[in-house]
């Protein structure tokens, strides 16, 4: 039965891609949202607390990390919607690999996040943001961002499986915002009140943002954050990946 795990996961990924092909507007909206946030914070709000020099230099890597964090919401909504659809019963009554539905979802979400990163970087370049670290460091930064997204993805799947109902999704959706903003995406922790700065420094997303800034050679970058930016997501995955798979297998109870 496990021999089909790969083909079944691919079939489920194709399903998500077919959804995109039928609803391209959805993708555009999903990608446009972080671009809008970037423009809003770059021009409307302007200048972060404790940031010297060009704000866009600090903001773009922060927005990349924040977009990966907000991906949790998208995953959660998609999984919740899927679970409440009739078609899930057919999948579960078929001799297909357990979990292929979740793998298909995660591949599709990763592709969408990669697309969002590409668009955000393009818009960032147009705004005057530059990466100075060279090709290897650039790819390393993208890798860290996607790794962080992957951890958010499985947290999102687990939350969707636990919450189950669209009403509860809204509650979690609202909570994602403070967690996303309690980071160094827009401002440096040094500029915040002491306790808040500490919370922000502990936020795994802050490590990813700092490490990415470092690799891009942007302001706010600090050496020594690459390891936490690798370890934090892996630790989250070690907890939430098995939890989500187990929870999914137990839907039948």
């Amino acid at each position, binding site marked *: 039965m496990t021999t089909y795990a790969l083909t079944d996961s691919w079939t489920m990924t194709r399903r998500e891609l077919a959804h995109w092909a*039928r609803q391209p507007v959805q993708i555009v909206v999903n990608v446009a949202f972080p671009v809008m946030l970037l423009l809003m914070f770059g021009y409307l709000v302007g200048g972060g607390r404790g940031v010297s020099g060009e704000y866009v230099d600090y903001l773009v890597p922060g927005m990349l990390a924040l977009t990966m964090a907000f991906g949790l919401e998208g995953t959660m909504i998609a999984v919740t919607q899927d679970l409440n*659809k009739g*078609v899930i*019963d057919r999948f579960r*009554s078929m001799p297909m690999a357990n979990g*292929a539905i979740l793998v298909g979802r995660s591949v599709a979400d990763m592709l969408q996040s990669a697309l969002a990163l590409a668009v955000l970087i393009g818009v960032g370049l147009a705004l005057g943001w530059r990466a100075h670290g060279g090709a290897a460091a650039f790819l390393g930064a993208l890798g860290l961002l996607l790794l962080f997204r992957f951890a958010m993805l499985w947290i999102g799947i687990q939350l969707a499986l636990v919450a189950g109902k669209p009403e509860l999704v809204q509650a979690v959706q609202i909570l994602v915002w403070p967690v996303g903003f309690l980071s160094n995406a827009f401002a440096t922790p040094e500029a915040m009140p002491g306790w808040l700065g500490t919370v922000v420094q502990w936020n795994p997303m802050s490590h990813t943002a700092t490490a990415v800034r470092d690799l891009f050679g942007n302001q706010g970058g600090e050496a020594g954050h690459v390891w936490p930016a690798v370890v934090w997501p892996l630790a989250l995955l070690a907890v939430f990946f098995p939890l989500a798979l187990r929870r999914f297998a137990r839907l039948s109870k």
Partner: protein
Amino acid sequence: MADTAITVEGARKKYGDKPALDGLDLTVARGAVHSVLGPNGAGKTTLVRILSTLLRPDAGRIEVAGHDVVTEAYDVRLRIGLLGQHAAVDEELSGYQNLEMFGRLYHLGTRHARVRAGELLERFGLADTGRKAVKQYSGGMRRRLDLAASLITEPEVLFLDEPTTGLDPRGRAEVWASVRSLAGGGTTVLLTTQYLEEADQLADRISVVDRGRVVADGTADALKALTGGDRIDVVLRDAGHLGAAVAVLPVPKDDVTVDTDRRLLSAPVTDRMAALSGVVRALEEAGIEAEDIALRRPTLDEVFLHVTADRVKEAA
């Protein structure tokens, strides 16, 4: 084992404190069309979900196509098709995309999955709508696509959970025709329904379910015979004459039901024609005017009330 497609012994399932299945037993012969008949909340859907491996039972021995639904769920899934109460297809995709996807998930391989999708769309009269998203389909079309999806691998056992609920008469006739042709091909069909007529039309055997147990089991004729067979309904012009009518009618008096609001009396009959002419003559002789006289078969309500009334008596 070779001649039994479904065996259920002592199946139990609780949701919280509420038992949905309360020691249900059921045996379905291979190749039979077996109907599970009962009102809402009787446990029909729970039974189908357990048989199709979607739900784990709390207790009981349950085998489908020779495999245990809990310990050998994968083997069961290879051999079943499921048509649930709600269309289990992807609404965003086209009919063709749905069937091709399910074919791949049954591991037919890309080419075979495509051929099969085309065949099934053709067979269920959906060939010309194959590229349209399912959410634009009518209810009947959706049901047919759903049925097509259940038949991709020509399953040994097919579960149909209230397959015609919410369909218009034409959609219902289409589903009935499909079930008949499947049964002709040797597929075992377990069909749940709230309508005696549907069970009557399609099933070789019927199990009446109430509160998570089978309360009666047999052919449609045997079940109807339990309630005293056919009935005659007489609607009078004047409700005041109901009492007099009961007195003169040539029917067993203790089994007559009277509904004053509808000016209706109803009685069981054995010989249909003799009863009809006897009633007409008796009313004429007594000078009681009737608005309508009809012979009819017992409804599910009557079969059901009869069977559950027996259970209440047994319990007392």
